[in-house]
């Protein structure tokens, strides 16, 4: 077997062909950050339009396109990929693995996401973006003129496939790739919550896949599922969407919960309080997450029995979530709390998220939901949980793991400016929206009339959004000015878990010797009960690693091309795309690839370099 890969490749080829979970993680982070800025820009444009009543900064049509793309981009192309970035980089390190279970599929998942995201955004230049909201209710979506919705359907289908693949990969990685001694109940909570989130992905995304398939067949091939005159029914779409859609929001929040568990324990310098309760609560949230989807459909006419059942089931989620909140508070209790930027975001999360969570419970009151539904009260609720939960989690994780991932530390002073401005801007933007909703402002309105008392709060809300933008720019500045800040990047926070035992930058094979895990918070245990070094569970020997390959990129590219064939019903293009995809899959299954070995000498050299460096 060959021991090293032939030739030196250009940097671009290296990234295009990589199957290293760390590089893929970084690409997810970069892609997600790009789409976050894009989705944020779309939000700002909407907020400018809503700054004054009857303002004509944007046409109603453009507004609808922006609002659809903002929601879709933020959920599918920003929040989820950013989380996937952390999951990719951190999970193998936290469980003491050299790689994920399916490195090839991992790369494939990333490229599918990226090509799907690009596809969706090409709609801007191809006659108009989708305009039916991120929920794309039929028949508005199935009859929407132009190709916007076709881009929506195919873009999400392609990137959704990537997500599903990624989810399966994480599941198997966690189950099969853990280092010796790392039992399920010794796993760090970030890994645990990502694991549960991956289960949700596995079961939620197929419903979306079918929903999108039906919508595509209806728009492009004249199917009649949603055409009432042909015996169709429009509520089927809503069920399929929300059977996916509700678990989706927990797919977003659970990994973020995991990040907070790591950050809070690290900066309180305390073991997480009630570890097994935390695990159990996560599982319950995941399970209940599948039982409540119809709370988005209280007004659609399912009947009072259905509404009552779904209302009560929804409220029940407050209980396990509350368990987590109180466990975090008790983790802080008696600790030595350090106010680093990472921890500020985690601390800012607790009150912000609880405010969003309790409005969620208010929304779950079905009879009152008849007032709340589709108003700005809902917009306020979900931005509180999403920004106060997911986005804060992403920022917290970014500051926390940045040194490990990028090899330098972000500036703390700028970080704190960023935090405070973002926190204030966020509450300013969304707190007043609760009132707007109850005062009669529906959501998804391109503007509002001037004599209805909605002017002041909308203006305040937009000001808050500007503040968030300033904060975000400070973050960007921070990323660039801090590049030289390379001291103490191996274990800067006195970490507790295995990722902090690796050298920075993390070598390709992660661990020269797979560690032996003896307790929860394995590293902390060795630091304070042992000699500060992980015990090895295997002798030093050659390490087997998978080979780089361009095939994932090509498979995704083929689907990207084929999508245009669908959108414009152009069969030659469709077949070219499919041939590329299936051809590459065929090559993959026929050409055996057994990876390569990293010789023990090189690992020894690395180890010495690490000790002297």
């Amino acid at each position, binding site marked *: 077997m060959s021991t090293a890969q032939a030739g030196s490749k250009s940097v671009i080829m290296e990234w295009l062909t990589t199957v290293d979970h760390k590089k893929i993680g970084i690409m997810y982070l970069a892609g997600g950050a790009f789409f976050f800025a894009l989705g944020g820009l779309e939000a700002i444009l909407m907020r400018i339009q809503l700054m004054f009543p009857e303002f004509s900064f944007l*046409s109603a049509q453009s507004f*609808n396109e922006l609002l659809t793309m903002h929601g879709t981009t933020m959920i599918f192309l920003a929040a989820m990929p950013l989380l996937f970035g952390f999951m990719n980089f951190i999970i193998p390190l936290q469980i003491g693995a050299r790689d994920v279970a399916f490195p090839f599929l991992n790369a494939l998942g990333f490229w599918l996401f990226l090509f799907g995201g690009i596809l969706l955004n090409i709609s801007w230049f191809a006659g108009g973006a989708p*305009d*039916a*909201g991120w929920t794309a*209710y039929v028949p*508005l979506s199935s009859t929407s003129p132009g190709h916007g919705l076709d881009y929506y359907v195919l873009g999400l289908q392609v990137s959704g496939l990537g997500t599903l693949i990624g989810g399966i990969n994480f599941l198997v990685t966690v189950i099969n790739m853990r280092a010796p001694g790392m039992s399920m109940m010794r796993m760090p909570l970030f890994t645990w919550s990502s694991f549960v989130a991956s289960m949700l992905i596995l079961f939620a995304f197929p419903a979306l896949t079918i929903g999108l398939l039906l919508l595509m067949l209806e728009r492009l091939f004249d199917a009649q599922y949603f055409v*009432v005159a042909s015996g*169709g029914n*429009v*509520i089927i779409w809503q069920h399929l969407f929300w059977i996916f859609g509700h678990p989706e929001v927990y797919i977003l929040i659970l990994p973020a919960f995991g990040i907070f568990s790591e950050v809070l324990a690290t900066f309180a310098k*305390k073991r997480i*309080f*009630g*570890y097994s*309760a935390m695990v159990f609560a996560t599982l319950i949230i995941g399970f209940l997450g599948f039982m409540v989807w119809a709370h988005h459909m209280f007004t*659609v*006419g399912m*009947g*009072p029995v259905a509404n*009552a059942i779904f*209302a009560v089931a929804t*409220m029940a989620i407050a*209980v396990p979530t*509350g*368990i987590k*909140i*109180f466990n975090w*508070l*008790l983790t*802080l*209790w*008696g*600790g*030595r709390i350090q106010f680093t930027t990472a921890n500020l975001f985690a*601390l800012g999360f*607790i*009150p912000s998220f609880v*405010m969003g969570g*309790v409005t969620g*419970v*208010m929304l779950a009151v*079905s*009879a*009152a939901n*008849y*007032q709340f*539904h*589709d*108003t700005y009260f809902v917009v306020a609720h979900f931005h509180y949980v999403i920004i106060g939960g997911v986005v804060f989690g992403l920022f917290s994780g970014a500051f926390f793991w940045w040194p490990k991932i990028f090899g330098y530390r972000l500036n703390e002073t700028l970080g704190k400016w960023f935090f405070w401005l973002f926190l204030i801007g966020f509450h300013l933007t969304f707190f007043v929206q609760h009132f707007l909703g*109850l*005062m*009669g402002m*529906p959501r*998804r*309105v*391109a*503007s509002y009339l001037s*004599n*209805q008392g909605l002017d002041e709060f909308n203006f305040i809300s937009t000001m808050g959004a500007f503040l968030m933008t300033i904060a975000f720019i400070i973050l960007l500045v921070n990323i660039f000015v801090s590049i030289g800040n390379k001291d103490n990047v191996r274990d800067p926070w006195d970490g507790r878990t295995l990722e902090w035992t690796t050298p920075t930058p993390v070598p390709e094979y992660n661990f020269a010797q797979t560690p032996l895990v003896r307790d929860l918070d394995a590293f902390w245990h060795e630091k304070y009960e042992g000699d500060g070094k992980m015990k090895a569970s295997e002798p030093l020997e050659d390490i087997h690693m998978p080979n780089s390959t361009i095939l994932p990129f090509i498979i995704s590219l083929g689907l990207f091309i084929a999508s245009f064939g669908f959108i414009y019903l152009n069969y030659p293009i469709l077949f070219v795309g499919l041939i590329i995809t299936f051809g590459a899959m065929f090559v993959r299954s026929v050409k055996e690839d057994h990876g390569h070995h990293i010789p023990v000498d090189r690992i020894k050299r690395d180890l010495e370099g690490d000790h002297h460096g």
Partner: protein
Amino acid sequence: MENLSALDPQGPVADMQYSLIALSLYIMIFVLVVVFLIYIFVLIKFRERPGDTHIPKQVHGNRTLEIIWTTIPIILLLMLAVPNVMDTFTLANTSVMTEEEEEEMDHVHIEVIAHQFWWEFNYPDHDIVAGQDMYIPTDTRIIISLESEDVQHSFWVPALAGKQDNVPGITNEMWFEAPNEGVYMGKCTELCGPSHWLMDFKVVAVDPDAFDQWAENMAEPSETATHPEEGTVAADGREVFQDSCISCHAVGEDGGATGPNLTNFGERQVIAGYLEYNEENLENWLRDTQEYKPGADMPSYSQEQIDDEEMAALIEYLNGLKILD
């Protein structure tokens, strides 16, 4: 400013919903206070002080605490869930019998049919079709059935009741009552296209006698309004109307149903659901319909189609379409 806010309920249904909102809000404030108190205490007490390097005790957990913070939320949620389930059933009961009285209540049945981007109100018991303004009698149970002609819409009158969706192919029902006379603002709350934000309507509650009068006149509008006397400007306007508009708009018995029924158009407070009612706006609306409501099913009328003189006549005719007084 009309009655628009759900925070200022004007009828029993909105009241019921308001008290649920209030109840849930109190519970949530209690939760927030508890969480915030612990939070602030912890942050102050256990923050790292300069020079402090102690390693805190690595506590594993506490069974008693776990039980406490599992049971208390369950109790709080039950306090909320029970009234909610009861109200959900009450609101879904659109039969007109009240259980205590066992007799038929006064009620009016209205079919609300949503169109992009306007509202049609049918009164099947009165044989009336109205558009944009929904007249109702006070102190009477209003039974609404909801349908849609095109995409999904949602019918919301915050001050009187919550909303229910107008779903194509499906009939939903709801009810409410308005004890006080007044005009209540209604809105469409389901994204239904570019002019979704302008899909407003009015609920006009008048006392039952006035309502009966209105219904009678709607069913048989006075000839003088619908067929103005020969030779008047309005009669010329009627001609234009018969040429260009009648295929979509009905006045009295005859006319299409693609657009709102205009029998009582002269009594609208607003044009097309939102434009202040005056002649200038009316002319603008007819000239630039697609500017005012992009995507609406009514064409804009240029000078070639309707010249200024005809337009003036048309407006005169439309202004005269009144059924009351």
